[in-house]
């Protein structure tokens, strides 16, 4: 893994990326969703967050780009201390791409415009340059030929790939994926995963909340299992998914990997 980072021509640039979370806590009223999380993602690393629903993994991801404001703890991301009171959140977010479960494409803009709007309005790129970058990223996710389609003319999997291209068009140093395939029809999941697999190969730093154990096992440098707002177990994909040490991890994996299993205990 480190070889990939060091051999990258953008190594110095990438060095600024990466995520470091320390003592992260988040509550909604009396419901504590994150109970002191420490997590580092090194530049170029792909980390998959797994765990049962309600374990806090999506909240954790949303704390990284401050869509959720943590109550306690610090978030360092892309060279910014995101939790610092004086941080320029918008500047920080330019470096952090986010892909949502529900895609959240802008329905009044076509695929190309979805990828250009923030480039022109936020990065102040010229329309011509933004179009070029957008087209390149749509090509990258295999949808260059559908650039003029509107979201409601695209399948779920295509929409999600446009959403990935939209995030990539901002040249992020880090990509966050919040259950990117959970809302998809089974037959379109593969296309999205293969786009993500390619991204990982290109050395993109990725933090992925997912239920796709096959993807996690194949692509993740590290897998983090969360339950009840804490990190229960983390390690290489091999360790966590194939040889978990904690009972909670074993139980979760048994249910996920064998959906027909019914726990009668």
């Amino acid at each position, binding site marked *: 893994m480190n070889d990939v980072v060091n051999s990258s021509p953008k190594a110095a640039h990438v060095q600024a990326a990466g995520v470091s979370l320390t003592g992260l806590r988040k509550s909604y009223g009396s419901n504590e969703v994150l109970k002191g999380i420490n997590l580092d993602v090194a530049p170029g690393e792909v980390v998959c967050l797994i765990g049962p629903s309600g374990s806090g993994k999506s909240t954790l991801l949303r704390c990284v780009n401050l869509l959720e404001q943590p109550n306690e703890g610090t978030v360092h991301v892309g060279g910014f201390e995101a939790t610092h009171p004086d941080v320029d959140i918008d500047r920080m977010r330019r470096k952090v791409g986010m892909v949502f479960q529900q895609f*959240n494409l802008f329905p009044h803009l076509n695929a190309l415009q979805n990828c250009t709007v923030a480039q022109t309005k936020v990065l102040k790129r010229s329309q011509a340059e933004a179009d070029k970058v957008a087209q390149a990223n749509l090509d990258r996710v295999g949808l260059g030929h559908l650039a003029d389609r*509107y979201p409601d003319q695209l399948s779920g999997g295509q929409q999600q790939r446009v959403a990935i291209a939209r995030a990539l068009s901002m040249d992020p140093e880090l990509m966050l994926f919040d259950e990117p395939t959970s809302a998809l029809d089974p037959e379109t999941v593969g296309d999205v995963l293969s786009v993500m697999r390619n991204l990982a190969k290109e050395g993109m730093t990725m933090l992925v909340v997912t239920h796709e154990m096959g993807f996690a096992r194949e692509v993740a440098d590290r897998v983090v299992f969360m339950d009840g707002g804490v990190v229960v177990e983390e390690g290489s994909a091999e360790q966590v998914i194939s040889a978990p040490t904690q009972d909670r991890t074993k139980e979760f994996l048994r249910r996920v990997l064998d959906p027909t299993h019914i726990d009668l205990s």
Partner: protein
Amino acid sequence: MAMTATQRARVSLNVQAGIFIVAVAALILATDWETIGASVFNFGKIGPMFPDIFLVGLTNTLVYTFLGFIVGLSGGLLLALMKLSSFPLYRWIATGYIEFFRGIPALLVFIAFGYGVPLAFGVSWNVTVVVMVSLGMVAAAYIAETLRAGLQAVPKGQLEAARSLGMPQWRAMVTIIIPQAFKIVLPPLTNEVILLTKDSSLIYVLGLTASQYELTKFGRDGISSLGAGLTPLLVAGALYLVITIPLSLLARKFESRSARTKR
């Protein structure tokens, strides 16, 4: 003997048709057609209304409505944003404004701006300004609620997506949220214009010169000058429908379009 569902439906239809025929017959018999003909459908004497009812009355109604709508739309947008603001004072001001202007008759607002403000501040406003402000301020209260509902109808994920691309709040609103909300509110907003068109008639409480008459005032003037009874008002009423029915059709078209696609 019990009836089948089809038989029951047929009996129900016959009863409804019977009631209708009896009601219409009673109305026709009870009407004093001679008086009505002379005082409501007296089209022989209304010639002098034309063409000024178009050139002045209809035109002024359209102008007043348009001006009121522009003020109402801008004010309404401001109020809607205030109502959704995270700063409590803005929310309170907006809520107070909306409740106040929705709660009092528009006529009082016209009187307040037509007579009250000039008296209190010693200014004399041109009639057009009074209409624009009165109509606009009342419309703003209603439009604000419409726009707020529209803004809130845009899924939360849209704002999150825009913000996570690094757009500041205002930019996300202007570029992503408001254009989508606008499409959602087009039908109710069109209905708002219909209400405004009718409310523009309230200008009659102000002292107007002939060139400032709108449809209703023009009709009332015709009543006293033409000796055709209420017929001039009938004409004015018909011209309101000439404005409002196309708007109503337009609203329906917007509605069916937004039901089909979000674009």
